[in-house]
């Protein structure tokens, strides 16, 4: 064990350990060599594996993601790292119509073991095109696994799992959890094993136990929810925080079990509110816990506006500890339905 700061060194360590064992793994993307994909997810790899395996590709998502798809069909294990999840748009079709679907459409003949790592999330003045989450868009596509780590420990273990998975996986790493110098850090220094390990997909984690209200969250909002829960405790409200960890596959059982226990659920998400993650989670919660819910499920997400640049506007839309606290407190105070 030693201490790691943030999910970025955790992801790069997992990549490193897989690359050491498996010559088929290579890394492709923007600024992946010198700058470790800017937010550190591929940091240090070029020095170790050289430019033949850690490759700055000519710009263009269509090019990079299509190339990864093609390489995967020959048995390679491409890792595509982009500076921002917002840039996936330039290769959207390659993911949505090919990387995601070809295993199915080929009747299982052609696999797409492509791992994509992108930085997402706002709260640092990045402006819309460098702040959006948009993982819900990709979780929506059948055939893509979606990883949304909130801790360094998870980031390493889930990346290792991604690299062993025969399917495409996108790892959405929140910028404010990367632990990179110069970027605000909402995580904590953590003890992370040096030896390789993996964490199975589809297992949510209960980050804090509670009995009055369940807060279901992903990535940075998990950290914010844990802080809000500590604050709620001061008001004698016992909040349970469930970290989704992977959106696809989704651990409905753990989420529903918590919902059944507390009867009140707040879903928190930094992605856009409508037609996305919070709606899907809420559907599953009501389907599995309807008879135990004592209040309608609530949500805190980014209202349906692009992430604005100016600080007061940005702070008004990105879910923060205060908004989570307020909503959870109000939810806990709703009188129970007569049963």
């Amino acid at each position, binding site marked *: 064990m030693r201490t790691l700061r943030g999910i970025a060194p955790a992801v790069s360590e997992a990549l490193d350990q897989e690359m050491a064992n498996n010559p088929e793994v290579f890394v492709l993307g923007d600024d992946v060599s010198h700058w470790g994909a800017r937010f550190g997810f591929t940091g240090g790899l070029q020095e170790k594996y050289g430019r033949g395996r850690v490759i700055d590709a000519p710009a263009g998502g269509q090019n990079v993601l299509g190339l990864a798809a093609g390489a995967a069909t020959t048995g390679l294990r491409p890792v595509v790292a982009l500076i921002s999840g917002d840039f996936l748009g330039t290769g959207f079709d390659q993911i949505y119509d090919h990387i995601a679907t070809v295993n199915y459409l080929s009747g299982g003949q052609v696999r797409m073991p492509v791992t994509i790592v992108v930085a997402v999330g706002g709260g640092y003045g990045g*402006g819309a095109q460098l702040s959006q989450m948009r993982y819900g868009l990709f979780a929506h596509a059948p055939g893509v696994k979606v990883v949304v780590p909130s801790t360094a420990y998870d980031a390493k273990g889930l990346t290792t799992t991604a690299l062993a998975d025969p399917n495409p996986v996108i790892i959405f790493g929140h910028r404010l959890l990367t632990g990179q110098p110069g970027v605000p850090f909402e995580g904590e220094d953590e003890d992370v094993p040096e030896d390789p390990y993996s964490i199975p997909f589809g297992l949510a984690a209960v980050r804090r136990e509670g009995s009055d209200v369940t807060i279901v969250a992903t990535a940075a909002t998990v950290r914010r929810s844990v802080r809000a829960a500590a604050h709620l405790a001061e008001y004698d409200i016992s909040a349970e925080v469930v970290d989704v960890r992977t959106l696809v596959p989704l651990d409905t059982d753990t989420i529903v079990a918590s919902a059944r226990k507390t009867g009140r659920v707040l879903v928190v998400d930094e992605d856009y509110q409508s037609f996305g993650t919070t709606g899907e989670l809420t559907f599953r919660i009501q389907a599995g816990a309807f008879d135990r819910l004592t209040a309608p499920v609530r949500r805190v997400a980014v209202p349906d506006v692009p992430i604005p640049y100016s600080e*007061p506007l940005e702070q008004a839309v990105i879910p923060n500890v205060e908004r989570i606290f307020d909503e959870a407190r109000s939810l806990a105070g709703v009188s129970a339905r007569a049963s």
Partner: protein
Amino acid sequence: MVWRPEPSAEDLAVRIAEAGLEQGSLLEMYRTMCLIRVFEEAIRDRYWAGKTPDFNIAAGPIRGLIHLAVGQEAVAVGACTPLREADVVVSTHRAHHHALAKGVDPTRLAAEIFGKVTGLSRGKGGELHLFDRNRRFLTSGVVGTSFAQATGAAFGFQYRGERNVVVMFTGEGAANHGAFAEALNTASLWQLPLVVVIEDNLYAGSVPKWGTQAVNQHYQRAQSHNIPAYLVDGMDVIDVYEATESAIGRARDGYGPTVVEAVCYRYRGHFEGDPGGYRSRQEEETWERLDPIPRLGRRLEQLGWAGDETRTAVRRMAAEEAIQAVKVAEKSPLPNPAEALQGVFA
């Protein structure tokens, strides 16, 4: 820098006359380049306020990323000087110099960079998303995605029979996107009034162009689409002006698109806070000697159009304008948080 003979005073006078430039227009180009330089330096200064000694991207009066164009002033000014107000400029993530050269108000530009309600977009867009409808100025923060939009704007002019032109800027890195070829094909096929200006500053982020381009220059690619193309010295505003002026004239007269590739250099990092290390000091010094502003200054001197005193006065005036703009912008109010929820739909 494109190596070519430095003209004698006499040759220079001939060249200038052939380009249709006069004392007033050349001095105005000098002024705008100085304005851009000082504007960028003032923004840089305010960006670093609150970020030293420990850099924090979210601290200080300007948060987030900024991409300065110090060193690239000649490309923006050379290419925008022949434009009219109704012409469109489609710019990139590195956009301040293009905006100022297109006549965007420096105070409103700076205010947007500070995220103020007096900014071009009331603080909603920020540095990466600069728009000015009146000045017909557009950008995108997603690299390589504006080519077809520029083609579309040019199509709009052609469709409506308006004799306006679109100047589309791109970095040499962004031009590797497939959409670049798509735009050239469409613009050539339909003979659209489009002038593509490639700012080849040799790097895309930390990546030198030899690592990502199969050919050293992009302008040759235009020729394969039957588009005339120029390779110009992007550190020489006269060179840039000559090529773009005739390209813009042809586009306006219905003779279709042109590609102008201007070889240049950015004097600062890719963004402020760029850790560097990927360019040699020696390379940087070589390019610093080619600084486009003193270079134009020497030519004004050679032509007998502006001596030391005049140039100093012009520089001072431009500097005052830029510094004042940044000051006023910084003192302006922030938007009300309630504005965050307004304006998604028109």
